């Protein structure tokens, strides 16, 4: 029974079906319970939140990531899946806190000061959430002092900085310098992304990594953990 529910849950993640009303990728599951209903059903059947994440949500998103990398899925398809998993995580989060099960890590994400672009950041945030990270999106046009204060208060494992423009990416350098001045640089890994930045720029300003997209960010975070 448990295995059945978890398999269905995984399949619905792959189909990106948040609720019963959702068509999914190919409509084969139309009218059947979606990720939200199945998550609730799993909990009613005493399946632990940890098992739901490890045996259904995460493996489902892994398949979505593979399909995205082979161009079988496109951005909207993976967003639908990540959205469904994010909604399931909202149900599971309080239970995980109660049972003191740790999330994969805390991630603060922001578009830097002067830049008001947020679609790319939003996509990365929802993918990270879908992958089991606790994400705090502190918005767009975020000044360095607010980022520093958030890092100091929330002590995230990772800080993601986004910038679309060459005129605003320099603010990433300002943030990294401020992290150093406040003795916070060695307490948080900094990942940067956005159309304007590159691997070379990440090295130049002393960021830990440059990410081309959300799935690459997830892969990098796994590598950081394994290191």
């Amino acid at each position, binding site marked *: 029974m448990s295995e059945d529910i978890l398999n269905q849950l995984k399949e619905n993640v792959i189909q990106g079906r948040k609720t019963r009303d959702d068509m999914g990728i190919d409509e084969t599951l139309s009218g059947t319970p979606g990720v939200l209903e199945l998550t609730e059903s799993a909990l009613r059947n005493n399946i632990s939140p940890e098992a739901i994440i490890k045996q259904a949500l995460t493996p489902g998103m892994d398949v979505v990531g593979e399909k995205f990398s082979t161009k079988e899925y*496109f951005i909207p398809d993976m967003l639908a899946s990540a959205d469904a998993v994010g909604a399931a995580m909202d149900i599971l989060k309080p239970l995980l806190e109660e049972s003191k099960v740790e999330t994969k890590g805390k991630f603060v994400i922001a578009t830097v000061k002067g830049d008001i672009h947020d679609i790319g950041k939003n*996509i990365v945030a929802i993918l990270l959430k879908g992958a089991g990270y606790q994400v705090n999106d502190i918005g767009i046009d975020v000044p360095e002092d607010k980022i520093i204060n958030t890092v100091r208060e929330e002590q995230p494992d990772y800080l993601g900085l986004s910038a679309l423009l060459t005129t605003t990416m320099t603010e990433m350098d300002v943030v990294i310098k401020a992290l150093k001045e406040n003795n916070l640089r060695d307490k948080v890994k900094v990942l940067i992304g956005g159309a304007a930045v590159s691997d070379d720029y990440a090295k130049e300003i002393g960021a830990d990594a440059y990410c081309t997209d959300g799935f690459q960010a997830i892969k990098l975070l796994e590598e950081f953990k394994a290191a």
Partner: protein
Amino acid sequence: MPALNNEIDIDKQRILNRIGYSDDYEPSARINSLVDDYIENYHDLIAPSYSYRIRNIESVDGNRIDIGNSLVLESRKLGSLLERCEMVAVFALTIGNYLEDLVAYLAENGLVLQATVLDAIGSGTAEKLAVQIEGKIRIIAGIAGMVASWRFSPGYCDWEVSQQELLFRALDGDTTGIKLTDSMLMIPRKSVSGIIGIGLPGNDIENYNPCNTCLKKDCPGRRR
């Protein structure tokens, strides 16, 4: 600030391209249905308006283009175009802020797929409006026996985004409700500003494309 017709013909394939689909890929029924639904209803979310001024070009010296009233545009590539032109049309347009307010609301509530699709429709609409403005300027130029160039916007090529402020001053205060941030980005975000060169036929103005001689082959703004 004249209002524009908001019955803008949105090209669904362009919207699909903007959200990541290639031309030869058929999206799932769900995505098709979502895009169709938004294209059907987005008109209620836009309030298009525009402003433009046509100014004489006083002089062009390399990368410095004097358009009067102490307004000097700085771009070598624009200089190459405008040294052949008599006048320049300066414009700004916006689709208003309703659509992007809804995009922000959707994103904040975890509906990132919906937010992404609607955002792409907003960008596509602003783009279509910019094409309408180009058409208007072309007609005006034609009435005067002249031709008009393509449009060029600050932040692209070698034209610094910091010149946005100067471009807005060239609109004599009629910025059609668009405000500039300290970093010279426009609010509402779904806005387009720029210039169009106007001059006599026979000077290769209509098809001037600085991308033809540019070495940055991977530029996302490259025009063919």
